[in-house]
């Protein structure tokens, strides 16, 4: 089990909180701003990287991930300078993965070369749908043709390309989705993130649904049918799932996200960014100030954008390890959980008997038929509340 030896992996997440518009399904920390002072933001990111690096001490940096928001709205110079700062603060791995989330619009596509020159070697394109009406409903500003062109440009520009799709949308039938997914697979990217539409609290969609203005959403049974079809189709295309919603050709997995799911170490820089740092005092959860203006102000005036840094208990660590690890097809080794916090043999046996967990001693791994019930299964396996 190679990955279990890789517990020293360290990743950096950089949050860019701005978008040109806010999508109605999005509950991320994103804001619409007319103009952003790139110079001030660069200085702030540099200061934060230096502050966190001082806390972590020397690390081999495996991944950098620019998320948002819409990080493709950052200037290539800003991206380049942040990468330079990170490479200086920690020791970059030889195969350092640098991902940038991008809108598949024509404007962004025109800047892909600059991002590549800045050091980005992987993009994650928010294609979301290959249907113009659906894109409009999702509040996206790009069209299908534009997105297809952007994917081709990205493939010409970057070593690795991933696309995001959202399914189980309003009025979408399983047949519609299979058709759409076939077209997405035909693009030939090595990685796909295929998310079922989730109506998150506090979003525009949630408000619409409350008022009955979001009709035609598939029920759980229909959504499950779509999920199963997705697994079958992607597997036969040689791009199986390695996590609930993430599919990759062998070796094309997103290394940065694996850092999260494998319970490894990551620093979070930028407004609202979360980190998990193995500090001398112990594994700690960090969280940055959420509001962009307040974060910027705090970094400039108080030399820190941190809102909290909480030492995690052994139980917290175990819970996080399980709820993230169980999302992966590889599961997690029980050795990662202290004996007293492991699930009982009885619960494991019950889940194995129900065909929801593989019968693998020393390992917790959810079966294909259990994947859609991952949250429920996880809840059963978690240690009792204290």
């Amino acid at each position, binding site marked *: 089990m190679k990955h279990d030896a890789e517990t020293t992996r360290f990743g950096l997440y950089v949050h860019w909180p701005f978008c040109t518009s806010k999508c109605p399904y999005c509950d991320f920390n994103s804001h619409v701003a007319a103009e952003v002072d790139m110079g001030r933001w660069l200085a702030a990111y540099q200061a934060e990287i230096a502050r966190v690096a001082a806390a972590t001490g020397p690390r081999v940096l495996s991944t950098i991930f620019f998320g948002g928001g819409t990080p493709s709205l950052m200037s290539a110079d800003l991206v380049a300078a942040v990468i330079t700062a990170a490479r200086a603060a920690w020791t970059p791995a030889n195969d350092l993965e640098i991902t940038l989330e991008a809108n598949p619009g024509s404007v962004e596509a025109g800047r892909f070369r600059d991002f590549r020159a800045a050091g980005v070697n992987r993009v994650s394109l928010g294609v979301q749908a290959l249907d113009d009406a659906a894109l409009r409903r999702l509040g996206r500003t790009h069209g299908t043709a534009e997105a297809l062109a952007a994917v081709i440009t990205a493939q010409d520009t970057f070593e690795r390309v991933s696309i995001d799709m959202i399914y189980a949308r309003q009025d979408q039938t399983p047949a519609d989705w299979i058709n759409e997914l076939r077209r997405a697979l035909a693009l030939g990217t090595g990685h796909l993130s295929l998310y079922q539409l989730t109506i998150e609290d506090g979003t525009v969609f949630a408000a619409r649904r409350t008022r009955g203005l979001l009709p035609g959403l598939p029920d759980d049974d229909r959504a499950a049918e779509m999920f199963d079809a997705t697994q079958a189709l992607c597997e036969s295309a040689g791009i199986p799932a390695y996590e609930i919603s993430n599919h990759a050709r062998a070796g094309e997995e997103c290394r940065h996200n694996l850092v999260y799911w494998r319970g490894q170490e990551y620093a979070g820089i930028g407004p609202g960014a979360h*980190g998990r740092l193995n500090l001398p005092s112990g594994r700690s959860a960090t969280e940055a100030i959420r509001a962009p203006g307040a974060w910027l102000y705090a970094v400039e005036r108080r030399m820190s954008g941190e809102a909290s840094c909480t030492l995690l208990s052994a139980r917290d660590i175990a819970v*996080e390890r399980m709820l993230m690890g169980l999302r992966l097809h590889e599961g997690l080794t029980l050795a990662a959980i202290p004996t007293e916090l492991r699930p009982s043999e009885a619960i494991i046996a019950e889940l194995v008997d129900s065909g929801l967990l593989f019968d693998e001693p020393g390992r917790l791994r959810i079966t294909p038929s259990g994947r859609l019930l991952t949250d429920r299964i996880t809840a059963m396996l978690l240690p*009792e509340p204290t």
Partner: protein
Amino acid sequence: MPGMTDLAHIRNFSIVAHIDHGKSTLADRLIQMTGTVAERDMKDQLLDSMDIERERGITIKANTVRIEYPAKDGQTYILNLIDTPGHVDFAYEVSRSMRAVEGSLLVVDASQGVEAQTLANVYQAIDAGHEIVPVLNKIDLPAADPDRVKEQIEDVIGLDAQDAVLISAKSGYGIPDVLEAIVHRLPPPKGDAEAPLKAMLVDSWYDPYLGVVVMVRVIDGRLRKGDRIRMMQTGAVYGVDRLAVLKPAMVDIAELGPGEIGVLTASIKQVRDTRVGDTITHERRQAAAALPGFKPSVPVVFCGLFPVDAADFEALRDAIEKLALNDASFTAEMETSAALGFGFRCGFLGLLHLEVVRERLEREFDLDLITTAPSVVYRLHMKDGTMKELHNPADMPDPTYIDHIEEPRIKATILVPDSYLGDVLKLCQDRRGIQLNLTYAGNRAMVEYDLPLNEVVFDFYDRLKSVTKGYASFDYQITGYREDNLVKMTILVNGEPVDALSMMVHRDRAEMRGRAMCEKLKELIPRHMFQIPIQAAIGGKVIARETISALRKDVTAKCYGGDVTRKKKLLEKQKEGKKKMRQFGKVEIPQTAFIQALKMDA
């Protein structure tokens, strides 16, 4: 300390009224206008001392007050008001209170007219030989129609209402006329001060400072502080520690003579040691015979009370013990349920009594309770000739040993605007009712039905209210037991019987009740990772079935570095929520599902 009052200057009376017709307000005014209570001490609805009574506008325990009234004839009279419980569940208490006084004020809302409860209580007053003065309240309301209501009183009750006193208890209008009517139209009590002591135990309650307080009405003889008294039913002997009258605060008095009403304390430990209706006499010089008509109050409706949080069981036990100190008519025995854990099987005088006790437990003792479906007392006549009472369907013996089962029946009186009569008749018919009588008074119909009590405890009140938009009034009295085709219906969830949900039903209604319960549970039990059959069965035979399909999807689509904290909290909350689940084999049933499924409304 004042001594006894001569008979000619005593008037004892009660007030008969429907809920909301203003009984308590009138009582307050009488107390206020005679200066019995200083203005600043006046709380609205003084006699209803419990929160729940005040909120619901009903009286549960009889209260009394002694009023000194200087009448227009220049004489001062002692007026003893016994405030009777207004609800049918407390019919026995009402009848005892009625026998302690000589007259009644019949208070009727001048806009609403006579209601079913008024009828039951006014007939009790008539049975007790009362002189009755009709009082029309709320005559200042625009909708008041005193002439129509007077006619109704004459038609429905058969009382002469031409000299009814017109009042507005709220504004105080007409109150002096009421006081004069009490003095001049109600008779003084009779009695012989020199005969051996004979006093009626009208009521008793537990006071945390004084212990058990006993309310008495002296018939013959004199009762003094320090007397050795004997309870003729129980045979127990006590020394009178304290003798007082209620104004409504306790004021000590040296002695009580014939016709007088007061309270005593006598180092009695529990309310259970006193029996309402018992006769009190002197230990030495005893009365020749006890007062007639004593009967102990018997619970007729039973249900299980369980703490939502099993850890609250001890707290529930303490609370029940404390309540029982003050309420002899309420019984409780420990019960264990596989579904609900440890709790108590409790007996009540009726549904309202059940509600009141449950509310007091929740409110005064801060407990969250699950109430199982109310059940009546069935009589099981066994093949070996013995008879068993069944208080809990879970205790039902093997039916092959049972020859036949009897259930309690009631006579229900319903008063309803005639436009709703059809719905009411249908409801009664559906509930296995037999029509006894149907009469009209104006546009209101009065219908009497013979009904099984078990159909009434289920959801009859709620159905009646809903089909008549709240316009019907309802009252009942238990008439006796009758054999019928009764069976125990069991509910199985994933093949496991859920004891808390089993119930006795009439065979003809079993399918319907079973189907309703299965459908309800299908809505209430969350989907599990496997399919769950829900069945209603009689013996081994399934009569209704629903299936909860397996949960297909419970997964978060996106979960990255920034989502862990939130996700962790969510899962922990779910895990915490599991504490409120009851495990049934592999199925977890939320507490709320039991609460909902057992609610009386179908």
